[in-house]
């Protein structure tokens, strides 16, 4: 077995090395920088429990007497807290690392859910057509006409109401994944459907059908691979969107609780202190959020330019 797979891997690797993708990446400084920053951010977020000076979720480590300390370059700071502390006395650096982790988990989780829902619905709608298509696309239409953020806010408020504030806090991460996932699936569905419609009547699909393959096999094994590049491009943008959506929900108090803050809820809790001069509680997590979203968007832009897929407009 190994003897057969190794050359295949090697050939894939060499194929990748000679690909246009890598070629253009090597020539694009912005894309390289973005990737480096992105990987660095993901790495520190994933490794937060080992890197962070303290565990912001462990209340025993928090001392209210060291609250609202400024970052190191401002007078009155404490070297133990390089970027200051928040109103409860949490180390901002640790809290930001953990917060970025939460934001990334929700961002990727929500996009995975969107992709699963959107791709399956898109495939179904495009391949089966007829009533299924009409129903799913009408649903997508209505949802898109409401704007995804609005849907997320309303669904967020409803979910929070149904579960009650207490239960919501306990399961905030999976619930937020669910809310953002449900709000944004139409983007995928439309794109996939458009690709499927384009692919459906191509010869290889007809050939597969003549050979007696099942619809499911045709959809997943034959059509889906050909729609991968638009899905890939959308996904980058959607991760950025999902992170922003989570931050927006948290900022409105419909997201992560303050005891388990994401970047969005950190910004929210710091906002109260902006007027009284403690800007770092809100602006430093804000900066991290912007950088994170920016590099993802830049990578998405680069991917779109390179892959140049047919995307559904509007």
């Amino acid at each position, binding site marked *: 077995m190994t003897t057969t797979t190794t050359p295949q891997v090697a050939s894939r690797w060499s194929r990748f090395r000679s690909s246009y993708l890598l070629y253009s990446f090597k020539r694009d400084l912005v894309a390289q920088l973005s990737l480096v920053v992105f990987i660095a951010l993901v790495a520190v977020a994933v490794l937060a429990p080992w890197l962070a000076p303290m565990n912001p979720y462990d209340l025993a480590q928090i001392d209210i007497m060291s609250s609202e300390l400024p970052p190191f370059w401002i007078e009155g700071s404490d070297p133990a807290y390089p970027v200051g502390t928040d109103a409860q006395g949490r180390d901002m650096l640790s809290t930001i690392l953990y917060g970025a982790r939460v934001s990334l988990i929700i961002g990727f989780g929500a996009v995975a859910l969107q992709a699963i829902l959107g791709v399956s619905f898109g495939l179904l709608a495009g391949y089966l057509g007829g009533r299924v298509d009409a129903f799913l696309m009408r649903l997508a239409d209505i949802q898109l006409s409401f704007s995804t953020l609005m849907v997320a806010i309303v669904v967020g408020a*409803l979910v929070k*109401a149904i579960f009650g504030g207490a239960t919501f806090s306990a399961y905030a991460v999976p619930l937020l994944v669910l809310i953002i996932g449900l709000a944004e699936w139409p983007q995928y569905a439309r794109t996939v459907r458009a690709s499927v419609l384009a692919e459906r009547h191509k010869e290889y699909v007809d050939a597969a059908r003549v050979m007696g393959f099942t619809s499911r096999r045709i959809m997943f094994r034959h059509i889906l691979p050909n729609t991968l590049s638009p899905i890939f491009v959308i996904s980058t943008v959607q991760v950025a969107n999902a992170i*922003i959506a989570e931050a*927006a929900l948290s900022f409105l108090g419909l997201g992560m609780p303050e005891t388990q803050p994401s970047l969005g809820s950190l910004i929210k809790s710091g906002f109260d202190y902006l007027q009284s001069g403690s800007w770092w509680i809100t602006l430093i997590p804000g900066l991290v959020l912007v950088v994170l979203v920016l590099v993802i968007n830049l990578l998405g832009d680069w991917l779109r330019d390179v892959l140049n897929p047919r995307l559904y407009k509007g």
Partner: protein
Amino acid sequence: MIAFLIKRLFHALLVMFIISVIAFAIQDNLGDPIQQMVGQSVPESEREILREQLGLNDPFLIQYLRFAGNALQLDFGYSYIFNQPTTEVILRHLPATLELVFSTTLLIVLLSVPIGVYSAIRPRAWLSRFFMGVSIIGISIPVFLTAIMLIQLFAIGVSWSPFPADTGWGAWLNDLITTEGGMPAYGRGDPVPVFGTWATNFASLEGLTYLVLPTVSLASIMLPLFIRLIRAEMLEVLQSEYVKFARAKGISLRRIYFLHALKNTMLPVITMGGVQIGTLVAYTILTETVFQWPGMGLMFLNAIQRSDVPLIITYLMIVGLIFVITNTLVDLIYGLVNPTVKLTGKPA
């Protein structure tokens, strides 16, 4: 045409029906409105009487039918927190939101068209690259963060002197990054009453200053999208055969750009614009929260926090209506601009 409108009307009613049923189904979870109405030492027996009087103990179906019957007569009930008909409460908050959306739309249109066209005509100019760079940063900053930064910069002010102040260039650079603050960042100030519940911020210079920061932050999220869209569409049109043909015929570049190319660019932009007006309404919830702009978004958030179910339902239904209307209008305009689209209600 009429069939199309009827279909859309049905669409709207369906959306509003679904919203009302969902909102009604979860109202128990939103909290107890009685708690908001009575003093803390009122005994449970009194609360029960009040609950009975307000019909909160009736079965779900009866409560819903009562609501639906009244709603058909445009009576959506009383807001618990304002103690007024919800329609009145919303009408009072509507002008603030509409003015914000209007000024934002104005800003977007005024800036995105020239910038988008310019960066399509001169894609390699440094100014175009600058605009594209700024626009991707703009997309990446959440609207509430833009708002917070604007408050820090222009309402609170920043004094920062990282450069040596005793040198001329240092002082100049320090001045450049130091901001005065003082811009109004909270509420609407004193809008000038026009008629009824409508008071406007457009009638006085002072009123306009209150609009500046909220408008800029609300526009910050949409402006880049439109610039990029206009640029992309324009680039595509410029490469099309008929533009090449027109150029070959010797028609002046200006005429080509602004008459032929721009006209064709605007079609998808209008479609997108309609959808985005809806998105704008969603973003007002965030902007209004940060700036305490007394519009519908802020009111909605307060209603959620204080479990004012009738107000929440009315808001959702009215917003649903706004979405359906704007989408219908967009389709109508689209049909006028591009007569090949048939208004049959089927996806084009």
